[in-house]
């Protein structure tokens, strides 16, 4: 029996013939939540687009590897037409430009429900109001009549979530759903995503540059750097026991309300696709770099039951870490 909904293996992505992402491996179980974390240019959004079938709009394509949903091939963009709304739901980055400025919120919802045929026995309009209530909007009847510009960013993002789950998809994909929002609203939206996907037994792919955001709603997380997955494992374990130097640095650079100590930045900047080093792509910025790191690209190796790291010195780092050297 297979419990896997989505599986990516050795996925590579190119735009205009330039390979920007390579050897991405991860899987999403039915009803489970996976996070993808990395900084700008790490390839996390491209990976997300590959899964969402929207690479072609930016001139990109999957150049190698496999992408399977329920065992069916997804590397051909044409496969998506039947999946959108019903199997795959998307929550976009910027909620203001993701709603038609000339259409009422209610019209958006009714349009979607009618097309997906998910009104059920309660009628399209009632179903729309019900969806708005489910995403935590007060006075949903009133919101139905409003235009996008009359809502706050957080409210619009809730509407986008309502639209994404209108077809009861099996997989919800959220690409940086909170970047355009106030910090105070971010947490609510992430918690809503986590809660809804658990209740509806939907799988979730949550993309963010913030490990903290991802940790609130996911069970597994993939950390990406310069177009590769450098660490993958259960979210809790990764947060408590990061094995890749980049993940470590990312955690150290994260502001937090509890710890008031100094933030430690990561020295240097990520390499651009034109100037990727031959060896490990994090090597130029890594404090643990050694000769072997500069020769070959490290691949993901298991370091625990389901924890994988792409680093030649992962074992030593743990020891060094425990010895308090870092």
């Amino acid at each position: 029996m297979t419990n896997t909904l989505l599986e990516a293996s050795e996925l590579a992505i190119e735009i205009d013939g330039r390979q920007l992402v390579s050897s991405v491996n991860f899987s999403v179980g039915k009803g489970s939540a996976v996070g993808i974390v990395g900084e700008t240019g790490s390839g996390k959004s491209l990976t997300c687009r590959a899964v969402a079938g929207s690479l072609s709009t930016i001139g990109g394509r999957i150049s190698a590897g496999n992408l399977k949903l329920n065992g069916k091939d997804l590397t051909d963009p044409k496969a998506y037409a039947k999946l959108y709304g019903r199997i795959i739901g998307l929550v976009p980055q910027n909620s203001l430009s993701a709603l038609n400025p000339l259409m009422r919120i209610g019209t958006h919802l009714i349009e979607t429900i009618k097309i997906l045929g998910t009104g059920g026995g309660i009628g399209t309009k009632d179903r729309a109001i019900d969806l708005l209530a489910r995403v935590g909007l007060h006075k949903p009847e009133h919101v139905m009549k409003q235009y996008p510009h009359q809502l706050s960013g957080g409210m619009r993002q809730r509407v986008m979530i309502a639209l994404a789950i209108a077809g009861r998809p099996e997989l919800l994909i959220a690409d940086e759903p909170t970047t355009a929002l106030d910090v105070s609203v971010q947490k609510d939206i992430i918690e809503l995503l986590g809660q809804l996907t658990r209740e509806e037994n939907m799988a979730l792919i949550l993309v963010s540059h913030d490990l903290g955001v991802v940790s609130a709603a996911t069970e597994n997380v993939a950390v990406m750097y310069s177009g590769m997955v450098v660490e993958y494992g259960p979210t809790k374990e990764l947060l408590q026991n990061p094995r890749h130097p980049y993940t470590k640095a990312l955690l150290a650079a994260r502001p937090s309300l509890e710890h008031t100590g100094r933030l430690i930045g990561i020295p240097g900047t990520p390499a651009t696709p034109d100037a990727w080093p031959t060896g490990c792509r994090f090597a130029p910025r890594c404090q643990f770099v050694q000769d072997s790191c500069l020769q070959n690209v490290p691949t993901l190796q298991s370091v625990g039951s389901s924890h994988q790291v792409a680093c030649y010195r992962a074992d030593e780092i743990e020891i060094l870490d425990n010895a308090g050297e870092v």
Partner: protein
Amino acid sequence: MTAAAQVPGLASAQPTTRPKQLELRVGITLIALVVLASIFIPIFNTTDPNALVAAPLEPPSLAHPFGTDTVGRDVFIRVFTAGRLDLTLAVLGVIVPLVFGTILGTVIGASRKKALDVVVMRFTDGLIAFPFIILVLMIVLIVGPEATIPPLPPGAPSVLAATWLVNWTTYARLARLRTHILRQEDFISATGLLGYSRTRVITKHLLPSVWPTTATFAVSDLLSIVALIAALPFLGGGIQPPTAEWGSIMYEGRGVISQAWWISFSTVGVVLLLGTGVMMVVDSLVSTSRRALLP
């Protein structure tokens, strides 16, 4: 075709400038063609544009490439002699309002006194609501259709007076708007902090940045003035016959269009070449059209 330019960092790799360069080159070539023909054809072909050279309404032939008109004058030489006049008037008609309007608009835009701004803007509001052609006809009537300033032919001063009196308003508006935008930019607001004098800010910093905007509009304005001058004979104004002028040639041709299409059409053709060139130059200067595909 690809929208790769939307990906940060890849935008510079897109060769978006090439088609615009082509558009600009074709446009300049078309304009140059008409301008050079108007300059050189009357030099090499010494036929008098007002001489009766053949029978009236003769169709185009080798001797008379554009045929002859209602009294037997050579249309070919008349069209290009007219080109000299129309182009000169268009350039004169554009330059004065361009310079005056740009400077006035920049000064108003840079000024902190509201009163001047309100007065000039209300005035231009009134003028803009006015159908241009009616105003021009009235001015033509006041100056007198026969008025002349040598070497310009009768009718030319009234046309120039009309464009000068009306057209500066558009340039003033454009310049004022541009100045307001510029004032919010750092390099201009910094000059205030540095204590530069108002005059220096206007002449050294504002005008050089306002200029390209109004000058671009001036290119398309050239075409509107050519069209205006050519339209006036249809309304009983403009350059008076027998002077060769595009509008009066077309008007003459309109009367006999069922027998002699070539009189109107040769002029329409030449003006369209010029106009298409002007539109191409303007497009290449302002438009940014990148195609995205509907998924």
